[in-house]
Every structure is written in structure tokens, then in C-alpha cells.
């Protein structure tokens, strides 16, 4: 028997009513091993306006590249208390900010490795299905051999790489539409 997945629908403007209970600005709680980073950015629409009613979901591995999920054969080695998930809303100015630890590199297709990255889903009014992107880290030598970045037009790759803004602060804007549009993925 085969079914078809239910049609996606927008979260609408009142998403926080049902979803904000999992909001956090600390994807990795304080004290978790790994290099701590602060990430901030804005979500910008096709007319250059900031998007105040959106939400991000972050999913990431721990500092040694292990996911807190049974599908990862090394999940048992994940640091206790590390889940690697959190929701981050945009504020009235369309800005978001959170802290986490830089993940380790994680297994890629065909026995290779992927450079450290965060998976980022974007939910908002006007998105009938959520968008999926990735945040990569600047000054990361593994980016050059990352199998996912390799599939992206070189001229657009920098939309996936956060900018170093000093003192373990990274900046990463998400542009939904237009000449500087962020790269979004399908699977």
C-alpha cells in the first residue's frame, strides 16, 4: 500500500501561537563542549523589506559531528544534554540571533565528509512550504571539499557561508528572493 504525503500549508501569521514553546536562543546549552559561536542575521524579502513574522528551525550535530538521533550510529556518544535543535523567531525588525557550538564535520555521501554546517528551515506567512538552507562557517578549510557546496553555482556559494564579525560572532542574512537570493535546497 502506498500513500502520498499530505500537502504542506503555510504556517500563516500566527505561527508563534502554536510553535514558540520551543523557541530558544541557545541551540547548545552553556557548558557544552565545542567552540561557542553567536549567530545573527536578518530575513529579507524580494522587495528588500525585513520579515518580522518568520521562524527558523536549526538542526545540527555536536562538536564531534554526531547527531542526537538513532539513525546516527554514534548517537550514543553524543554529549548528554545536547539535542542540536531549536526554534528562533525573527523580531519586529526581521532580525534573529542565537548561540550554539560549531559542529564537527559529519559523514557525507559515499563515505566522504561534509564540512561543519547547520541545517536551517525557514517558516513564514507567504511560504506554502518551508525553505531549507545551510549555514557554513567562514575560514573553514573543509568547505573547499564539501560535497553539497560543490553542487552550488560558485557565484552563489557565499550566500551559504556566514561572515565573521569578530569575537566569535557570525552574521548570516537570508534573502528570500532577488539578485542576492540565498541558496535553498530540495532533496
Amino acid at each position, binding site marked *: 500500500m502506498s500513500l502520498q504525503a499530505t500537502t504542506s500549508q503555510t*504556517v500563516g501569521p500566527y505561527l508563534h501561537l*502554536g510553535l514558540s514553546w520551543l523557541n530558544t536562543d541557545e541551540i547548545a546549552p552553556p557548558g557544552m563542549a565545542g567552540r561557542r559561536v553567536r549567530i545573527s542575521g536578518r530575513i529579507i524579502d524580494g522587495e528588500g523589506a525585513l520579515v518580522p513574522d518568520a521562524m527558523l528551525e536549526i538542526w545540527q550535530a555536536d562538536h564531534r559531528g554526531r547527531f542526537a538521533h538513532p539513525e546516527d550510529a554514534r548517537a550514543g556518544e553524543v554529549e548528554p544534554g545536547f539535542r542540536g535543535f531549536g526554534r528562533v523567531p525573527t523580531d519586529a525588525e526581521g532580525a534573529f540571533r542565537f548561540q550554539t557550538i560549531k559542529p564537527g564535520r559529519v559523514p557525507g555521501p559515499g563515505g566522504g565528509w561534509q564540512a561543519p554546517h547547520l541545517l536551517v528551515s525557514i517558516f513564514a506567512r507567504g511560504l506554502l512550504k518551508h525553505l531549507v538552507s545551510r549555514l557554513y562557517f567562514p575560514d573553514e578549510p573543509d568547505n573547499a571539499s564539501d560535497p553539497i557546496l560543490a553542487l552550488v553555482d560558485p557565484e552563489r556559494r557565499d550566500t551559504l557561508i556566514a561572515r565573521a564579525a569578530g569575537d566569535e560572532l557570525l552574521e548570516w542574512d537570508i534573502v528570500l528572493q532577488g539578485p542576492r537570493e540565498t541558496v535553498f535546497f*530540495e532533496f
Partner: protein
Amino acid sequence: MPELAGYRRPFWGTQPEYLHSTYVSTRIRSPSRPLVLIPQTLSELTGPVFGQDGIGRNDDDLTRQHDGAPLGERMIVHGRVLDENARPVARTLVELWQANAAGRYHHQRDQHDAPLDPNFSGCGRMLTDEAGRYRFVTVKPGAYPWRNHHNAWRPAHLHFSLFGPAFMTRLVTQMYFPGDPLLPYDPIFNCTADEKARNRLISQFDWEVTMPEHALGYRFDIVLHGRNATPMES
């Protein structure tokens, strides 16, 4: 690490495109460049695992979250969460939010001139059981106006959010009610090319779950992406 079985691609026409011009907000929020197709890696084949943490006693009964009972038509909404292989998705998080019976959300951005109900927040959550079943008690939400076009009204609906076993299976959707005269006019409901797919967003009235002298019953089954039978070629 062994190769893991990937999740299926959507059937054509069963999922919306990002640009759906009759839903005006999509015109400036949808990507203009094609999405980049990438393989499903361990990052996408894993996802957050939730337990009972943060789920309260009355989070599955939206009529018992305040001192008094909310106004409106009491209803039970239930169903199963399955994957495309018709297997139950057990112990997965289901989140629900909705307007009150007058069509007003308990949300500061909602300025619709309809009354708030001090006894209704419109938010629920629970985990499915071993058979993938969920069940909420709530009130039927009202229709409400929005500014998409002149005299635009959203049909009554519940918002559902589900995770399933992986980042790949994440789904946010809306459930509608049978016989709602607003459905043919709603650009969000009508966002798919496949008519059968959108009609599956309409719940079914369910006599067997209807409780005499207490609440009407509606059934809404939800299907998450399922895995391919064999591991993907790498």
C-alpha cells in the same frame, strides 16, 4: 558508515510551488531561482527527537486550559500519522494551533474585530501513540477575513505541525472542514495542481468518535514522507 535509505520525492502536483500568485504574500517571499537538488545525507536523515518534556496535562484538551469552558462548538479531532508506506509514525510530536469559535487568534498581531475568548488559547500538543494515533479536544474555529484580496475569508481550519523521524519528514499543514462553502475561494487551500491532494486536507465527520451530548468528531489522517524500499545509490 553504511548508506541509509532515503526518503521519497513528492508526487507531482501534490505539494505547492513556492510562487502561487493568487496568494499574494508568495509573490515577494518565494525564491526566484530553482532550488538546488542535493543528496539526502546523515544531516537530513536525522532530526530532533521529542519526549514528554514540556507537554502539559491539558495540552491535548484545549477546552480545559482555563477556569471556564470556551465558547463554541466542542469537537474531537483525531487521526493517525502514517508514512507513505502506510506505517504508523509512533511517538512523534503533533502541534496544533487555531482561531477561537469567533475566528480570532489569541495573538497580538490578529486585529480582527471579533471577540477574544478568555477561556481559549487555541494551542495544543501531544505525542502520537504506538499506532500513530493522536486525539485533541477543542472547539471548531470560526472563519475570518484577511487582506489577500477584496472580501477575502479564510475557511475554518486548524494548523498542524509534525516532525516525524527525520529533518526530511517535517510537515506543517492545515486541516479544513467538510462542506465549507469558502473552500473554492481560498488560494491557500487551492495551492496544489492535484485536486485529490488538496481534498485530503478536508477532515471527515466521524460519527463513531462523536460523543453524545458532548462533542462532534472529525477525523484527519496525516501522511509524512516515507522511505524508499532500498538504500539510495551513493
